């Protein structure tokens, strides 16, 4: 079942941490968070950042093609992520930083399956 809405919950947090080199603040509002639900279309798990493509059907029925990136897969592997974490067709809920320019782009901080199971463990849990 395609989720029918994109839910945006914006939360102001404390000082944000930004991973290096491909600087997160360049593309993302590192002190804000959104939550977006959709259906995975593609996942690539390679450094410097993993990329997850997914479709969201907005409240008006329009399909939005989103891209989400993560921190380094090297770091994520130690949090329980792998190339098999997502497959096309998976329903997911993603929390993360919204793009600076308002495009359908986000930086994942936490990811959940349709049943609420978290993928891997959050930052700082085991590293």
């Amino acid at each position: 079942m395609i989720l029918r809405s994109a839910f945006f919950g914006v939360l102001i947090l404390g000082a944000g941490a930004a991973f290096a080199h491909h600087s997160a603040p360049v593309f993302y509002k590192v002190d804000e968070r959104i939550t977006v639900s959709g259906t995975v279309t593609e996942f690539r798990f390679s450094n410097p950042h993993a990329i997850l493509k997914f479709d969201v059907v907005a409240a008006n029925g329009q399909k939005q093609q989103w891209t989400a990136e993560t921190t380094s897969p090297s770091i994520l592997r130690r949090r329980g992520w792998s190339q098999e974490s997502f497959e096309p067709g998976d329903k997911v809920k993603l929390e993360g930083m919204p793009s600076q320019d308002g495009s359908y782009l986000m930086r994942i901080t936490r990811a959940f399956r349709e049943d609420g199971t978290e993928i891997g463990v959050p930052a700082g849990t085991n590293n």
Partner: protein
Amino acid sequence: MRASNVVSALIACAAGLTAVASVHAQAPQGHGIAGFWSMAPGPTPPRRAATPAEAELIGKFRDGAVLLADAGATEFPPGDYGGLNVRANLREAAKSYDPEKQTDVSLTCRPPGVIYSMQGPFPIEIFEGRDLIVIKLEYFDLVRIIFMNETKHPENWPHSQTGHSIGRWEGDTLVVDTASLMPGTLFNNGVDYTDNVHLLERFRLADANTLVVTQQFEDSGSFEGTAARIMSFRRGDDHVYPYDCDPTYGLAIDSRQGPKRE
């Protein structure tokens, strides 16, 4: 002696020599810093109070050194140099710095120099030998060779992201002096140091499972005085992973060209 016995004897002899050579090449010096280390989570000084072990190494910094608050995952925003007096011409040039170019295929997998890479949030693995200490960084697969049997940098050593490093033990502290670094980013916000930068690092165990690392660097071509950082690592039972950077990463975040959120 039959021919087969001669061959067997030669093989056994060669294996023995190899084993001896291997033992000599990798004989540890017993300082305890070898192993896998991941950066301790959370802020580092000056964002928090220093532990006694950290304070002792901070006390080794040159007088007036500016302790930068960007070690670990934190980064300074554009125009913020952590209190370091960056040369005016570089500050002016940094205003036109375009960080989006970092995602260009030609630049995505270009590793930063060790001054930036050592303070990032990635693990390192240290191998301690008699004449060499090797530091393998997970970040961009960088490998540092610390020559423990040399006391000065060779002339005309090629500049690189890892430079030329010589090391010595001062008691239980490994002191590493690095030169011949090619220009690289100071803060990932548009200011580079020059190829005359000089880096001095200290590695010391706070306890069996905590490694404190400091870096102190000077480069009159890019900033005044001395800059410093301090990081703490936790020992782990692991190895650094291959980084195996994919240069096409930037092409995949192409949704920036698409529609915008309402």
